[in-house]
C-alpha cells in the first residue's frame, strides 16, 4: 500500500518542525468532544422558550390608529403597494353659534398585506405622526396566503408588543428634536433676559451695570431636564417653546 499513508494509531498532522507524541491527536479528539458534552448545548427550545430578539427586530408593523390622519403617505411610499387605506371626511359642527364648521379625516380601513410586504420599513420612516411602528412579534403565520392581509384591528393589537425605544449610545449625537428644543429654550431665555435687563435699567438709574453680565452662561440649562427623559416626543415641547 501507499508508504506515505499513515498508521491510523498515530495520526500525526504533518507539522513542520516537531513531531507530536503518537496518539496525542486521538486524545485531543476525545477531549474536544467530552468538553463539548459537558458544556451547554447551543440549541434554543423555541416553542417552549421564546427567543431573545434584538430590540430593533423587524417582526411586524403595528398601527397606532389614533395617530393616523389618513394622509396616505405610507401607502404611496410603499414599494409594493401593500397598504390599503380608506377614509372619509366628517364635519364637526361649530363649537360656538355662528362659527365655522370644521372637517376632519376618519380612518375607515387600514390594512397591510404581509404576503406582499417586504419589511423595508419605509412606511414607518415616512409616517410624520408616528402611527406605524416595528413590533418584534413574528408568530403570525397562516395556512392560506390570503389570510396574511391584516386589518387595522389586528395591526392595533400588535401595538402592545412594541418595545420602548432603545437608549442612545453614550457617544451618539443628540437627536435633532433635542437640539431644536434647546434652541427654542435659549431664544426664550434671551428674551426673558432682555426683558429683565430692560426692567433693571428702568428701575435703577444708578450706574451699576456689571451685575447683569454673568447671565448668558446659564442659558442652556433650563431646557435640558424635560427633554432627556423622553426623546421621541420633543416636537411637542418645541412647539410649546414657540408658543410661549
Amino acid at each position, binding site marked *: 500500500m*501507499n508508504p506515505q499513508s499513515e498508521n491510523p494509531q498515530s495520526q500525526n498532522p504533518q507539522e513542520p518542525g516537531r513531531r507530536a507524541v503518537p496518539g496525542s491527536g486521538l486524545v485531543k479528539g476525545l477531549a474536544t468532544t467530552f468538553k463539548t458534552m459537558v458544556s451547554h448545548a447551543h440549541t434554543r427550545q423555541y416553542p417552549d422558550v421564546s427567543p431573545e430578539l434584538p430590540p430593533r427586530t423587524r417582526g411586524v408593523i403595528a398601527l397606532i390608529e389614533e395617530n393616523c390622519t389618513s394622509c396616505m403617505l405610507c401607502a404611496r411610499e410603499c414599494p409594493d403597494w401593500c397598504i390599503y387605506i380608506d377614509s372619509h371626511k366628517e364635519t364637526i359642527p361649530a363649537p360656538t353659534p355662528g362659527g365655522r364648521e370644521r372637517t376632519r379625516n376618519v380612518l375607515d380601513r387600514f390594512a397591510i398585506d404581509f404576503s406582499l410586504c417586504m419589511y423595508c420599513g419605509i412606511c414607518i420612516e415616512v409616517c410624520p405622526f408616528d402611527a406605524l411602528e416595528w413590533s418584534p412579534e413574528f408568530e403570525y403565520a397562516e395556512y392560506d396566503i390570503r389570510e396574511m392581509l391584516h386589518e387595522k384591528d389586528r395591526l392595533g393589537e400588535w401595538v402592545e408588543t412594541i418595545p420602548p425605544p432603545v437608549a442612545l449610545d453614550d457617544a451618539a449625537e443628540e437627536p435633532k428634536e433635542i437640539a431644536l428644543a434647546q434652541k427654542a429654550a435659549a431664544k426664550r431665555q434671551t428674551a426673558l433676559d432682555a426683558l429683565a435687563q430692560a426692567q433693571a435699567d428702568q428701575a435703577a438709574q444708578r450706574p451699576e451695570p456689571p451685575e447683569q453680565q454673568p447671565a448668558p452662561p446659564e442659558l442652556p440649562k433650563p431646557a435640558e431636564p424635560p427633554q432627556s427623559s423622553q426623546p421621541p416626543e420633543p416636537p411637542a415641547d418645541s412647539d410649546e417653546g414657540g408658543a410661549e
Partner: protein
Amino acid sequence: MSSATWWLEVALRIVVVFLGFLVIPLVVGQMEHKAMAHMQGRLGPMEAGGFHGWAQLVADGVKFAQKEAVVPDAADRTVFQLAPGVALVPYLLALIVIPIGPGTQVGVDLDLGLFFALAVMGVAVLGPLMAGWGSANKYSLLGGLRSAAQLMAYELPLILSAVSVAMAAGTLSLTGIVEAWHWYWLPWQLIGGLVFFTAGLAELQRPPFDMPVADSEIIFGAYTEYTGLRFALFLLAEYAGIVLLCLLTTVLFLGGWHGPFAEVHLGWLWTAIKTFALAFVVIWLRVSYPRLRADQLQKFAWTVLIPLSLAQLAITGVVRVL
C-alpha cells in the same frame, strides 16, 4: 416435580435474557442519541415521551413497524428476508452464556462459554454479507464486500486477544474466567483488552470502522435496500452487538462482577456499570473520529492489532509459565 421446576427455571432464564436483549440495546441507543447530541452541542431528542425524549426509540420502533416491507424485484427473496434474523439472533444466543453476577446469575453456565460466544458472534457477521449479496444493488454489494474484507481482518485479533484471557484463566468458561480474575489482570491483559475492544468495534462496523456502511460513499452499504421492520432489526442488531461486545470486554478484561464492595449482592450492578461505561466509550469514539479508509483499515488490523495480540499472547504465556 423436579423436572417441572427445572422447566420453570429454564423458562424464567430465557425470559430474563430475552427482556434484557430487547431493553438494553434500546437504552444504549438512547444513550447514543443523547451523548452524541451533547458532544455536538445539541440536545438530541426532547419531545417523545415528555421527559428529555426518553421514548424516542419506542416511537422510532412504532414508525418502523408501520412502514412497508419492500423487497426489490431482482433480490434473492429468501436470503434478503433472512438476513436481518441472521444478524440479530446470534447476539441473543451469545447473551445467554454471559455471566452478569456471581454464582448462578448466568443464562447457561457453559464450559465452552467463550468459544460459544465468539463462534456465535462470527455467525452474526454473516447478516450483512447476506444482505449485501441478496439485495441486487451495487451499493449493497460493495458494502457487503467491504464487510467481508473487514470482518476477515478483524476476526483474528479479536479471537487471539480472547485466547490470551482464556490462557490466563486456564478455562474457556466465562464464569470460570471471571472467578479467576484478579485486579493485577488489568495491567497484565491491558494490551489484549484494547485489541479486543478495538477489533470488536470493527466487527460491529461502528465508526471509525464503518467503511462498509459509509453513507457518503455507498448510501448505507448492505442495508441500502431495507425498509421498515427489517431495517429496524438491523439497527437493533447493531446495538445488541454493542451491548454484547461491552459485556464480553467487561467479563474478559475488566473483571465482570468484581467490584470494590458487596460483590455477592451487587455483582450485577458492577457488571452493568462497566458495560455502560464501555458503551459510552463506543459512542464517544464514534463522535470523535473520522472514518478510516479501506487501506488504513486493513493495515491497522494486520500490522498493528494482530502483532499486538500475538505479543499479548506471548506475555500471557511467559507470565503463566513463570
